[in-house]
């Protein structure tokens, strides 16, 4: 009798685990609107430091302090975009200037 029930129990456990994971994702707003998603992200970010501290106390060792990175990818990207577009926009006038200078130089040589 146990051999007959075991597959059913296994299947029921699997369904419970998968269904529970799906329900947790739905309940915490991960599958909803973008506003709910950012709220959940904020809550998770706020919950990480206390959780990390708890784990550190439990295991009894200190994690090395995260080094302060002064580099901001956003600023770097923005300034990169601005510089490239500016360079593209001044290219025609710069090229024509250089061409004029080059032609003038050649004219001077042939005088």
């Amino acid at each position, binding site marked *: 009798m146990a051999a007959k029930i075991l597959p059913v129990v296994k299947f029921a456990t699997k369904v419970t*685990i*998968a269904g529970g994971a799906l329900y947790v*994702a739905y309940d915490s707003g991960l599958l909803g609107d*973008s506003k709910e*998603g950012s709220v959940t992200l904020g809550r998770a970010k706020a919950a990480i430091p206390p959780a990390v501290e708890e784990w550190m106390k439990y295991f009894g060792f200190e994690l090395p302090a995260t080094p302060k990175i002064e580099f901001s990818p956003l600023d770097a990207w923005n300034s990169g975009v601005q510089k490239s577009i500016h360079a593209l926009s001044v290219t025609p006038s710069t090229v024509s200037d250089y061409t004029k200078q080059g032609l003038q130089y050649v004219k001077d040589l042939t005088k």
Partner: protein
Amino acid sequence: MSEKEFGQKWDRCLADCAVKFGTGLGLGIVFSVVFFKRRTWPIVFGTGLGLGMAYSNCQNDLRSRYVLHSKVAKEQ
């Protein structure tokens, strides 16, 4: 749509993309391990579902300014 509002919407879009990608990946892994004998396709499917949900949310969010919203008047 003002520049500021547009920027906020894009920020929300990207954050939502990351959240849904992670959720889809996680749920795909759970389903793959539990039901499908650790095959790869449920993971890819879940990730794709997550990205698709994020895309759809982004689309609705960016279009919401220009969509007419109406209310059905109750019959009296």
